[in-house]
């Protein structure tokens, strides 16, 4: 196809946040026992959409094992135009 040059802009990405060893410990994770050979660097925290809606998870990236899964905002990352409207 001879086509004029079209732009394909790069879109946004979900940032996977680092998790500290203290945070893992607070979640009940014993690295030596539960994930031998792994460090806190092997875990990330980020939002996911799944059964039951949006959750903020902490996962071991190599095995996808979830160590924390907490309900997140009802609409996830989407903000309504009416969000923040105060009527009182």
């Amino acid at each position, binding site marked *: 196809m001879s086509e004029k040059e079209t732009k394909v802009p790069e879109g946004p990405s979900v940032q996977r946040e680092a998790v500290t060893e203290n945070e893992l410990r607070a979640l009940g994770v014993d690295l030596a026992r539960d994930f031998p050979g792994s460090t806190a660097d092997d875990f990330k925290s980020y939002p996911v959409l799944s059964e039951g809606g949006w959750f903020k998870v902490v996962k071991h990236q190599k095995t996808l094992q*979830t160590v924390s899964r907490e309900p997140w905002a009802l609409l996830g990352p989407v903000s309504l135009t009416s969000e923040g409207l105060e009527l009182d």
Partner: protein
Amino acid sequence: MTTTHPEWDSTSLKDLTEEEFAHRYSTDRFTASVLGSRMRYVVQHMCTGLLANAFSMILRDWYDFAATISGPPEQNYPMSAVSNSLTLFLGTMDDGLRNTVEEYGPENLRKGDVLICNDPYRAGNHVNDVLFIRPIFAGDRLVSFVTLRAHQLDMGGVVPAGFSGTKRNVYENGLVLGPMLLYSDDQPVASTFNLIFDNARFCALLLPDIKTIYQNLVLGENLVNGSIDRYGVDAYLGATRYSCDVSAEAMRDGLRSLPDGVYEAEEGIDCDGIDDDIEYRLKVKITKVGSKAEVDFSGTSPEARTSINASVLDTKTAVGVAMKFLIDPETPFNSGSYRDIDIILPAGTFISATPPDGAVFIYWESSDPVVLAIFRALESALGERAVGGDYGSLSIHNANGVAADGTPWVTTAQCGGEHGPWGATKDADADNYSVIYSANNLDPATEAIESDFPVVILRKGYVPDTCGAGTNRGGAGVMKDSLWLTDTEHWSSPLHTKRGSGVGVYGGSTGRAGGVWVFDPQHFNVTKKKDLLPTTSEIYAGSTPVAGVLDPEKKTLDPENGVYYYFAATQTWRTKPNAVFRYITNGGGGWGDPVDRDPERVKRDVRDEYITIDGAYRDYGVVVVGDPAHDPEGLRVDMDATTARRTEMARQNGR
């Protein structure tokens, strides 16, 4: 440490003892199965009631609706049963129900209420697809919901009936309804009806349809209450959980069947409704470990400037459709299908648009590529189980005008490229005339269309050599011609014509991309000539291209060397009486190497005009001799020449 699922998830449901089963589901295995089947019967019964009584053609002739049953808030609204109808709705109704009820407040619901919402960002789909929710109480306890999502013929906005990829924001798109009551104590809420009917067109059709929807919600409520009365609330709620667990386990088994790995692919659509300077590209990265998967869409193009976008819930639906298709096609779809799949989706892409500028209307044009991208990504993991791509775009056509007596009319998704081919599988050639993988609808009857509107459906046929070649052949592109008898405005939305969408798999070839044209009666007047618009290549030179990669002189399809014609170059196509619109859909993808196809099957395809004699030689290495037009049964295969040709092709391909 908390894990994704309770520890008992690792035990197969079939391996549970009767005591374990009863402890978990508050009923026995047999009763749970009966109640699960009963839930699927209920939603189907609700749909049958609406289909049989609807007035609007989009409900009556397209089956543009779906029904579900969901559990109560304390179970987090598990959607345990869905109807066998519009798939595009099924994944959104699950979260749409939760989002609507949670915002309204479940504590504010009463028996006899019908709660509605049509906001794409809260509940998915587009503003015409109103979600109707009926809470079900056992005594004072909220125990379940039945829902119907049904396309309303119009919901305001700048385009009659709404179907267009050219609307620039939510204000042009149509009326947005946050959670509000449509019925209270089984009485209509006048303010809500007034809000809709002061903003929507074609209300004479909407009103009886909404009343029918209400009656079928009541039907669903009564049927569910019958189950609860007979088996008890605890058994009913246990069966709700059990139904979802069955689907979760089936998807988990499907995921286990794939090799662990990271699988990536891209798909996309041609442009939006502003100009053709920007192409929208979808990126998917699937990470699969054991029985768990992540589907990450990071890097997908930003949201489009017009209403071609999809919402996050439309994308969730598409992920579910793709995974069910590929690895878990046997068990019913419900909330549980997503239990071991996490979707990672940033806001503000064209498959996760946000208000007010990321308008969502023809969302399937962006969400069906999600299905195709997952098909592409998992091709290597699936091996011979891979499935070819479909025609990838409804190329939806809407038209409107005014009858001689002043009555306005509108067609909805009847005269474009709404139906077309699927991709082939290891088992067989593909179907040629269905709807995109993520839909599932009826094909409106020609007689009904011609009875209701000033249009004649001239042709529905297959186009030779558009199928993706393969050991099993992809479906053929569909040609549809419509003759418009009066002055008419048209809205045409073909968004996947730059490249073929019907990707070939397991050595098969990709189906050919299609196009759209308008033929002015001065060029060829069907009514005066009393003949169909020809299909020969010469006829296209006098056409006005709407979309496709075409030879700029001949205006014929030329995917390799042609020029792209942009669908929204003219936002509203206005035609005089006797103009003809022609759509050719994309072809479906082939499965397996074409040279492995039995020559007799190729000969049969030539006889049936799925492929030409030249195509048989070029794509399959089969030399067919004879005249398919005048002596189709006299065709024969020249086996010596075929062997020589296939040997030559094998040498060229390094086999």
